[in-house]
């Protein structure tokens, strides 16, 4: 028997064993409950306990399995119930009460509680599937396909769905051919910059000498990005398979997963996955009898954003402070311990098994010619359906925000999307029809980055958004190089002055100049991309900057120093005291005429009164520029001409 056949046979044996195990459970009803971090935050563990309690009470023979995240984070806690004879149904926004009812009504009796169901997973005659909704039409799941549907703690689930078949195929192929396949697929690094993965592999492979190292970069740190976490928590074996294939291709026998310590659940599930793949002979010595050895170690990062930069990441594994170094030399030629080191992102590695299984031309048939495949976005902010969405590259922002994300919350007006986190930029309404891929985003001044996508509406001030992100990069700057250490601080100070109404006309040009120089002059990717939020907001929202500086006005009524609160006498009900109760600093008082007034000296601008004022009155408005009102003993009427009605009041 040749080596090739031996490996194939070894894999087939494993897979049939896994399939038998999984099939054995098919006769019984199965509850798959999403207990990834997003689910847990929404109360999934309480729901899990309720399910278990109810199942025990009725002595039911039901399999209750914890899974990961399906991407519908807005509807967590979320469960899939598979009952023989019924379509597999997804239930969202669960609580303990609903969990008990589902067991009583659906599992004990036969009422599938359609009123709680979100969608079915397979086409049927009774209930729509995800594909029947706009989100389902635009989504194309590759790396998220199994997330939420398999047990991340059970390797058999992954194996039964053809998991590790890519590895089995690769182990009987020459490494050069594996690299050729990845190059052919035109896969680009999903960590942000979009560098061709195959070229990176080839460079690392072609540097002579051993040992070599492979590292999976799971140091996800962008505010608003959580797809790496979801992948590690929901389908860790997919990442392990990708990393093993990558290590085989470049000739590494030692690999690391650099994961941030703030992801305890991901680390726990990865540990389990590592133990299991080791136990099943898919990791360790002589993998599947091929003679290839690989050891994978977990390394926990201590929470520095800059450690996502590959040279800083290596310094961190070395035990030194996580500071970036000049490149070249690139890690692919001289990285960990000075040896050739391949570093790929979690998402990049997750695509690898699929490309090996289905071929490069399949991958290239999805997405755009220069950015093939899909992109995973973490939808957050003022969008209705937050969560993870995987769409083909080239999908427009409009489809993503309005169809996948179901539009803007509270029927507010779309203003911008902040894409790519602190390295990315803010794109305005005019960019909504931009097909998103690596190159189009770069042209528009943003960046794919990690794929975080924060949707902003008319209540978000673009100067404040720029300030927020520069504040983040300034705090996360390692401080090594001049431009990033001092330049981001200079930009932050200028932006802070503008949001306080202390900006000067020349500040906008100064910001622009500084931003351009920091981009060119900084040592590493953090500094080189930190000015993007500033540059794009100036490029697309310059009038907002000018309003702050010239008129002392914040058009979005967000900057606290540039707004004041007022209760419009004509709209106030006199008999309602809700605003007084809501005010944490007792700034609202009752005037002699029973109308309410706000003492500007006491007001901390917390917005509680705006939220509290009943919708039938909407009497509290925000004004910008601020109008200083005196505390009145008698009602004094003012002209409303210079008054700009604030948000939350004009609808």
């Amino acid at each position: 028997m040749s080596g090739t056949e031996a490996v194939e046979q070894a894999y087939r044996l494993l897979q049939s064993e896994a399939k038998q195990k999984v099939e054995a459970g098919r006769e019984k009803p199965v509850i798959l409950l999403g207990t990834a971090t997003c689910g847990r935050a929404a109360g999934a563990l309480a729901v899990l306990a309720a399910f278990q309690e109810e199942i025990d009470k009725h002595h039911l023979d039901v399999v209750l399995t914890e899974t990961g995240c399906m991407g519908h984070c807005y509807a967590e806690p979320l469960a899939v119930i598979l009952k023989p004879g019924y379509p597999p149904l997804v239930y969202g926004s669960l609580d303990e009460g609903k969990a008990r009812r589902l067991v009583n009504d659906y599992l004990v009796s036969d009422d599938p509680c359609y009123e709680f169901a979100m969608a079915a997973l397979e086409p049927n005659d009774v209930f729509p599937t995800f594909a029947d909704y706009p989100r389902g039409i635009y989504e194309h799941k590759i790396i998220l396909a199994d997330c939420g549907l398999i047990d991340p703690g059970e390797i058999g689930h992954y194996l039964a769905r053809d998991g590790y078949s890519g590895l089995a195929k690769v182990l009987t192929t020459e490494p050069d051919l594996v690299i050729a396949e990845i190059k052919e697929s035109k896969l680009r690094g999903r960590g942000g910059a979009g560098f061709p993965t195959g070229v990176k592999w080839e460079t690392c492979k072609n540097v002579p000498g051993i040992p070599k190292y492979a590292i999976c970069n799971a140091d996800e740190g962008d505010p608003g990005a959580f797809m790496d976490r979801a992948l590690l928590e929901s389908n860790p074996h997919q990442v392990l398979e990708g990393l093993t294939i990558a290590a085989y291709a470049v000739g590494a026998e030692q690999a690391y997963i650099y994961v941030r310590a703030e992801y305890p659940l991901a680390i726990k599930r990865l540990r389990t996955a590592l133990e299991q793949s080791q136990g099943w002979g898919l990791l360790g010595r002589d993998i599947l009898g091929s003679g290839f050895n690989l050891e994978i170690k977990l390394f926990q990062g201590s929470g520095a954003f800059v450690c996502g930069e590959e040279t800083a990441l290596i310094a961190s594994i070395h035990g030194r402070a996580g500071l970036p170094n000049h490149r070249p030399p690139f890690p692919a030629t001289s990285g960990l311990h000075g040896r050739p080191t391949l570093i790929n992102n979690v998402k990049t590695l997750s695509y690898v098994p699929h490309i090996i299984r289905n071929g490069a031309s399949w991958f290239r048939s999805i997405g755009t010619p220069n950015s093939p495949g899909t992109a995973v976005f973490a939808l957050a902010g003022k969008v209705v359906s937050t969560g993870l969405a995987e769409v083909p590259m080239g999908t427009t922002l409009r489809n993503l925000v309005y169809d996948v994300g179901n539009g803007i919350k509270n029927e507010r007006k779309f203003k911008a999307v902040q894409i790519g986190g602190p390295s990315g930029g803010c794109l305005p309404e005019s960019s909504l029809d931009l097909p998103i891929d690596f190159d189009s985003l770069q042209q528009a001044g943003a960046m794919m980055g990690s794929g975080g996508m924060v949707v902003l509406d008319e209540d978000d001030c673009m100067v404040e958004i720029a300030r927020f992100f520069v504040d983040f990069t300034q705090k996360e700057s390692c401080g090594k190089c001049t431009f990033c250490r001092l330049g981001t601080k200079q930009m932050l100070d200028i932006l802070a002055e503008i949001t306080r109404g202390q900006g000067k006309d020349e500040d906008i040009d100064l910001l622009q100049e500084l931003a351009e120089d920091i981009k060119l002059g900084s040592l590493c990717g953090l500094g080189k991309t930190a000015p993007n939020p500033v540059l794009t907001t100036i490029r697309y929202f310059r009038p907002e900057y000018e309003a702050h500086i010239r008129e002392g006005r914040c058009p979005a009524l967000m900057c606290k120093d540039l707004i004041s609160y007022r209760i419009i006498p004509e709209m106030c009900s006199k008999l309602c005291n809700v605003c007084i109760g809501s005010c944490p600093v007792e700034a609202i008082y009752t005037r002699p005429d029973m109308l309410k007034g706000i003492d500007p000296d006491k007001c901390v601008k917390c917005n509680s009164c705006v939220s509290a004022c009943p919708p039938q009155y909407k009497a509290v408005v925000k004004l910008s520029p601020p109008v200083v009102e005196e505390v009145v003993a008698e009602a004094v009427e003012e002209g409303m001409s210079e008054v700009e009605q604030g948000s939350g009041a004009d609808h």
Partner: protein
Amino acid sequence: MSREVALTIDDRQVKAAEGERLLWAALDNGIYIPHLCDLREAERTVASCRLCFVEVEGLRGPVTSCTLAVSEGMVVKTRSPGVDRLVRTGFELLLSNHRLHCAKCAKNKHCELQKIARERGLKLKLTRLRSLLQDVPIDESPRHFNYDAGKCVLCGRCIWADQEQVRVGAIGFIRRGIARKMATFEDGCLADSICTQCEACVKVCPVGALYLKADELRLYEPKKKC
């Protein structure tokens, strides 16, 4: 003997040892490039001061000359509008966090910042940028020298001298971002640390952050009358 390569810097034909860093090849040939952090003896460049920008034919945009090895036929320009703009901004950024009182500084006339200003026609005062300077105390604990963190440009030369040259390991960088500074373990004063006060760090400091007390005293000596 290592091989020599010929290259052109600012239209001048120069020769340099193969593998030599471009910054030092230029300086050896009397061509000035602003620089603070790089030391010829250091094994690996830290490339943190971001001042030694040059334009190299075939490479996009200004590049740091301390990280580039010379090669045969290389064509280099030490000045261009792009280079000048970056050097000016980098220089002004350093000044924005540097206690500027040259007349009363022990390193007056021996300061690299003054040299850069002179060579590149830059002002030694803040015009465009805001001052980021915080009030930091001067460590006067060593017998013969002082450490003024308010003048430190974070080039790291002193740390290289301490750790690589004399191998004491008394100082290093602490904290990050704008709070990054050179300090002893737990940020105590130098005299309480394992510092041997060998003054190797003082010799390499390009600015007035580490300076001899004697040099400072000289400033206050009464002017001799003829």
